[in-house]
């Protein structure tokens, strides 16, 4: 009989081949002042059904990584691949929820905004798309705003439409950039639960950006911690299966906080 | 091909024979006499340059324009399209009129006077003014009045002259603008083209390309006959001709004015060109023509070479 060594906690449970994987991903913006290094040799792997959360200080390159995964940015170094094949451009297999409030198409009502990709990318017939869009909007609590144009919505309402639009698509890969930042606690909690359910049901792979450590531990199966600008990998942590409110959850949140902000213990909060 | 003909005229009473041809179906009649059926298309263009463009582009067959444009196009197309005159279109004097009472002859123009011509330097009016200057001050001074001339279309110049608003004090005009201007009490005539060239002078010429004439001899001949008949008919029936003009063009001009122009014996549609060589030689002398025509026959087809033109 051989003694099994205990599985190290930081090692994620791989359930299949990587859906999305980056190797030494380096992302550089070309600006007037020259090259601007945003992300420096970051590697990450997302297996099917996995939920990876990017955590890091403002400006560290989280959105940039997301945009590279979406196919909007070409790596200056390293590779980024989808199911083993290099990402060469954007596509509806990876639906993005952007950080900006202007991601709704201003010439479409909330309903039409949600229906748009269903009709155009999923090729659903209009009636079916409409039914699905109405359901998605109902789930984010916008039943009464179906026919309002984006400029008539509040900040949080716009973000909710964008979330509904992404979830209604049921993509294989979902890339979300601080989707809940503009939402109140209750709405946020509801949508977090909703997101987890949808992702689970569809066995979707999720790359998620947030500033809330609690949200990160709640949503993620794994966390990817980034250093301040330019973004480098600090560490990764496996956080699957932690239940909010439990001591393990609170402890993990505290650990992550201290990892991200080692000097913060001296600060006032 | 034989049997179709596309013609261009400009607005104005100088093109009356065309109106008569159209009104009386003369082309049909003369075509029938030659055993062909002629279909004609008529277009109106607003100036000599557009007319020449239309002819050269092959969009039209027979055009009517001033002597100046004909001489220019003859000069430029020698050895290529070989454009030449068919018949003389009309002869009439064009007058230099002024609202400056002090000006009795061109020698009286002062530095504050401005003489409007359709286009400085190139229009037949501008050339005539240069010709007059050359006669008065010697050949080398032909441009003496040029610094007083400004380009302005006839209607605008007449308006300016009549309204006494602009800086225009004189206008080398044309019918019917000169008649309209001279009807005003404060406006008088300084000279006219007949004085400059020493007698009745052809102003309008009907012309075409060599190719049209050679490929459509019957149509061409029918046109010449029709034109001659129309010209003769106008000379005999000025009253009826005036009515034809009003009817065909829808002109709102006063019938008496039209009639007075038509019955003026200096105004004629005689197909024989007169006094065109003087202008042609002058144009060559000042460099506007590269080729010097020996006689008027150089820039007319043989059609009327038997006539006593000049």
């Amino acid at each position, binding site marked *: 009989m051989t003694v099994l060594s205990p599985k190290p906690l930081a090692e994620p449970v791989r359930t299949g081949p990587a859906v999305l994987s980056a190797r030494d991903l380096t992302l550089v913006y070309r600006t007037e002042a020259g090259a601007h290094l945003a992300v420096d040799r970051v590697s990450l792997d997302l297996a099917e059904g996995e939920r990876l959360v990017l955590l890091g200080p403002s400006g560290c390159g989280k959105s940039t990584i997301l945009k590279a995964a979406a*196919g909007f940015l070409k790596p200056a170094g390293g590779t980024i691949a989808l199911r083993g094949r290099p990402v060469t451009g*954007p596509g509806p297999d990876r639906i993005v929820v952007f950080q900006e409030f*202007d991601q709704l198409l201003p010439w479409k009502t909330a309903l039409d905004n949600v229906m748009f990709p269903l009709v155009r990318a999923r090729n659903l017939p209009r009636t079916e798309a409409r039914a699905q869009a109405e359901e998605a909007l109902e789930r984010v609590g916008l039943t009464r705003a179906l026919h309002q*144009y984006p400029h008539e919505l509040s900040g949080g309402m716009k973000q909710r439409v964008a979330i509904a639009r992404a979830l209604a698509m049921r993509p294989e890969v979902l890339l979300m950039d601080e989707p809940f930042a503009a939402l109140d606690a209750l709405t946020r909690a509801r949508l977090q639960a909703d997101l987890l359910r949808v992702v689970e049901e569809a066995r979707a792979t999720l790359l998620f950006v947030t500033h809330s450590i609690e949200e990160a531990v709640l949503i993620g199966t794994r966390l990817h911690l980034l250093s301040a600008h330019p973004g480098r990998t600090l560490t990764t942590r496996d956080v699957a299966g932690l239940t909010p409110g439990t001591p393990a959850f609170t402890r993990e949140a505290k650990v992550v906080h201290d990892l991200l902000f080692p000097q913060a213990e001296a600060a006032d909060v | 091909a034989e049997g179709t003909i596309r013609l261009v005229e400009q*607005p104005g009473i100088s093109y009356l024979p065309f109106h008569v041809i159209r009104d009386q179906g003369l082309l049909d009649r003369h075509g029938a006499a030659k055993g062909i059926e002629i279909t004609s298309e008529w277009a109106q263009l607003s100036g000599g340059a557009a007319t020449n463009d239309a002819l050269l582009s092959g969009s039209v067959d027979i055009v009517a324009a001033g002597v100046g444009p004909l001489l220019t196009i003859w000069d430029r197309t020698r050895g290529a399209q070989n454009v030449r005159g068919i018949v003389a279109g009309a002869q009439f004097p064009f007058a230099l009129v002024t609202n400056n009472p002090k000006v009795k002859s061109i020698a009286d123009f002062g530095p504050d006077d401005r003489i409007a011509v359709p286009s400085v330097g190139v229009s037949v009016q501008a050339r005539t003014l240069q010709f007059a200057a050359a006669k008065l001050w010697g050949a080398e001074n032909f441009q003496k009045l040029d610094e007083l001339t400004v380009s302005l279309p006839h209607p605008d110049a007449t*308006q300016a002259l009549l309204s006494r*608003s602009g800086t225009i004090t004189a206008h080398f005009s044309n019918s019917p603008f000169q008649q309209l201007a001279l009807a005003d009490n404060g406006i008088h005539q300084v000279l006219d083209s007949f004085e400059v060239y020493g007698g009745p002078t052809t102003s309008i010429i009907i012309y075409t390309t060599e190719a049209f004439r050679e490929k459509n001899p019957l149509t061409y001949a029918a046109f010449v006959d029709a034109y001659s008949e129309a010209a003769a008919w106008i000379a005999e029936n000025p009253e009826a001709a005036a009515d034809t003009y009003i009817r065909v063009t829808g002109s709102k001009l006063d019938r008496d004015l039209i009639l007075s122009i038509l019955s003026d014996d200096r105004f004629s549609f005689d197909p024989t060109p007169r006094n065109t060589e003087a202008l042609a030689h002058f144009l060559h002398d000042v460099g506007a023509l590269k080729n010097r025509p020996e006689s008027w026959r150089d820039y007319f087809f043989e059609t009327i070479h038997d006539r006593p033109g000049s």
Partner: protein
Amino acid sequence: MSDLPLLHSPSLLARVWENQIVRRLAVLSLLGLAWELAALWQNNPIMLPRLTTTLAALAEAVRDERLLGAAWVSLSVLLKGYGLALAIALALVALAAANRFARDALQTLTAMFNPLPAIALLPLALLWFGLNEQSLIFVLCHAVIWPFALAALQGFESVPETQRLVGRNYGLRGPTFVALILTPAALPSLLSGLKIGWAFAWRTLIAAELVFGVSSGTGGLGWFIFRNRNELYTDKVFAGLLVVILIGLIVELGVFRTIENRTVRRWGMLK
């Protein structure tokens, strides 16, 4: 304090003034008055007839000289040319939006040809199309394509990045991307390009009709103006111009305004 839409209950007068038509009519009346006064003061009817005289001449020309027929002749050529020009311009701009070399080519072409006066093209038009409507349409296209392409290209290039990325994210590319994302997003600029193109189509048509004249008896508005100018009927010339102005107003208020109100203003893209 009217930076955002708000609700208030203004006085009757203010409410009447709210109505755009009322304000426009006020503007028109002021202009008419200015014209009448200028004409009276100038007292030179052969250069500047009075508004009343012009209106009388307009009525007469409509009754006796088929002015409306002439206007219709011009308008129908105009619409054909405008429509064709827009189709060409949109195709060019869509190509330019998708491909960088096409964009450079279009920008170069626009910089080169836009300043060329229509009159410069007439000889070529004659050469290629002959003395007919097609030549006019060719010249109209030249008048409309370049300014519209400029406005459209600017509009396309100004589309907010996020909206462009959203479209790409759904896998839209090429014509679909242009039609479904760029075009609505750039609609304010496209509309201003449409208006400018419309105006210059008129200008060019009137000017071209003067030079081109007519074939076979069907003169347009430009020819009407030219003929009356030749006969020194200044009041009729102004009557012709008045028709151009009226058509311009009708199209602006009836067509462009309506489109704007139903689209870009409703969508909050235009204040």
